[in-house]
């Protein structure tokens, strides 16, 4: 489907200095989100750290550039909704909520502990800013469809974002909801598919082939944009395009790298639930900082 961007809705042309500053600020955010995730992973000694590092750039762009929300009023009725369909990515979302100012950074240390507001799998009733209880996969997009129908019915301009994984494309309910969003012309919905090409039993290509992912969404009536999910500049362009697109829902198909930003984990054998040895957390933090500094240097 070709993009039908209305020129009157296109953001004012940005000069290159502004854009570079915007991208640099988001890289700093993504770095902090990764750093928070590593700290939380160390508390548990394990976890979905590979996915968290992979999705950090998407969350940085979402929470620091795209979403309209009030950090001190997470239930504000006019907020954009960000649904974490992939409940096990909670470690990444908590890091992003801290970066967004909705959670205190200190609270992240309680991740996965008894009586914590930050359980291993995301639950709306536990955590401010967590919109749904995901984790039983294939639920987020259906709820997003209802929220978007409701918000449109109420005349609200709030938007609904749903983050799902390529593994969730196995679930029939995802496609039921995809049909519903397209049928009802819900252009206030943006779905983000984290294509890390890995699921619980191994590489997606071997578990249940989902490619060509973009073609599938287009066939379902969505405005589909495929983008490098670890390229902040490309993500900004894609989110901006989705925001102004009218007439159909948008999907950002984001290719991401498991363990991104930490070479030790980028090169480790890919696993859904990545094992990190006790002494490796500090190594990972050091590598992350080194990688981040070098990247900044090369951009300058």
């Amino acid at each position, binding site marked *: 489907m070709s993009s039908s961007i209305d020129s009157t809705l296109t953001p004012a042309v940005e000069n290159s200095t502004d854009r570079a500053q915007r991208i640099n600020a988001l890289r700093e955010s993504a770095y902090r989100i990764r750093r928070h995730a590593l700290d939380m992973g160390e508390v548990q000694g394990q976890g979905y750290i590979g996915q968290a590092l992979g999705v950090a750039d998407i969350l940085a762009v979402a929470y620091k550039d795209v979403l309209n929300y009030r950090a001190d009023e997470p239930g504000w009725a006019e907020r954009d909704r960000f649904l974490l369909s992939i409940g096990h990515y909670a470690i990444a979302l908590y890091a992003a909520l801290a970066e967004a100012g909705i959670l205190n950074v200190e609270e992240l240390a309680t991740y996965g502990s008894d009586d914590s507001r930050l359980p291993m799998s995301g639950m709306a009733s536990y955590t401010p800013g967590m919109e749904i*209880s995901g984790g039983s996969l294939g639920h987020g997009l*259906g709820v997003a*469809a209802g*929220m978007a129908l*409701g918000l449109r019915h109420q005349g609200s301009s709030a938007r609904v974002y749903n983050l799902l994984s390529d593994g969730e494309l196995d679930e029939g*309910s995802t496609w*039921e*909801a995809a049909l*519903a969003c397209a049928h*009802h012309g819900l252009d206030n919905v943006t779905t983000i598919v984290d294509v890390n090409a890995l699921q619980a039993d191994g590489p997606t290509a071997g578990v249940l082939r989902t490619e060509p992912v973009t073609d599938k969404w287009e066939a379902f009536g969505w405005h589909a944009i495929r983008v490098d999910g670890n390229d902040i500049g490309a993500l900004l362009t894609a989110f901006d395009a989705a925001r102004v697109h009218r007439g159909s829902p948008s999907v950002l198909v984001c290719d991401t790298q498991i363990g991104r930003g930490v070479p030790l984990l980028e090169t480790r054998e890919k696993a859904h639930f990545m094992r990190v040895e006790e002494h490796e957390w500090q190594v990972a933090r050091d590598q992350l900082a080194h990688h981040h500094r070098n990247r900044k240097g090369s951009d300058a």
Partner: protein
Amino acid sequence: MNAPVTSTNAPRKLTTSAMIASIAEEGQRTTKAPFGHALARLAEERPEIVGLSADLAKYTDMHIFRDAHPDRFFQMGMAEQSMLGAAAGLAEVGLVPFASTYSVFATRRAYDFLCLDIAEPGLNVNVVGALPGLTTGYGPSHQATEDLAILRGMPGLTIVDPADSVDIEQAVPALAAAPGPTYLRLLRGAVPTVLDEYDYRFELGRAAELRTGRDVLFISTGLMTTRALTAAKELAADHIDAAVLHVPTIKPLDTEAILRETAKGRLVVTLENHTVIGGLAESVASCLAYAGAGVRIVPIGLPDAFLAAGALPTLHDRYGLSVSAIKTRVREEL
């Protein structure tokens, strides 16, 4: 779906009725589409009421609401998981959805969505299931004979099995007013109108004594309450005095009324349009056992089996839900 061919001399067999079969008995007063009309009326007072269906609006009486309030009706297609997820989303932004489909699809097919999207966050979503128990002759694909058993274990879910059109009309605003999730076993089409002859008001969570009697206590729910009332009237001719305690809310159960009424030394008979596993009979049994009340129960309900296809009157007789089957069972047990 026709009955097998019979020889020309044999009496003509009853045939499976079309989808909208009335459960009304011959000569019984009925009201058309009480759910749809009640919801449309309620929506006039409450702008946050919305409706959804999964390609079954016409077959769940939701079409009445759809036609009265087209901007507040959302067609989700034949996709029950998506419908219940969307209903949760609508409730999340402050609307009060009623989502209708057949009971088999709401429970068996979309259980995870009812459980995690709606019940776990405690949302005010009202799921409306048509063809509960044995109210269609289409066989196991459409007969929700175990929907109560499936749903009773779901924390926080209110479950209502109305007896007739009066019950449905009064239940709809009560369900919308209740803050959490609900499941309504829908009687649709030409629905019997019976309870207006009694001093009765639907109250969520409360059982109601519709008739007093010294010998037998019928504890009934859903359409079996109207059968229990008819059976009680007819048993009076045999000098059997039967009381009827109507239990429209299966969960939370009115244990106080059940313990009070079962303590009077009468034969206790439970009646439900549902398998005897996991529905009213076992709800009453556990209520009595937990209270240490050693009262025997005669359960009238559907057998623990996948049921046959056929004409409803034939099937209700075969599986013991008809008035004559109820009377025979009571006489045997007394």
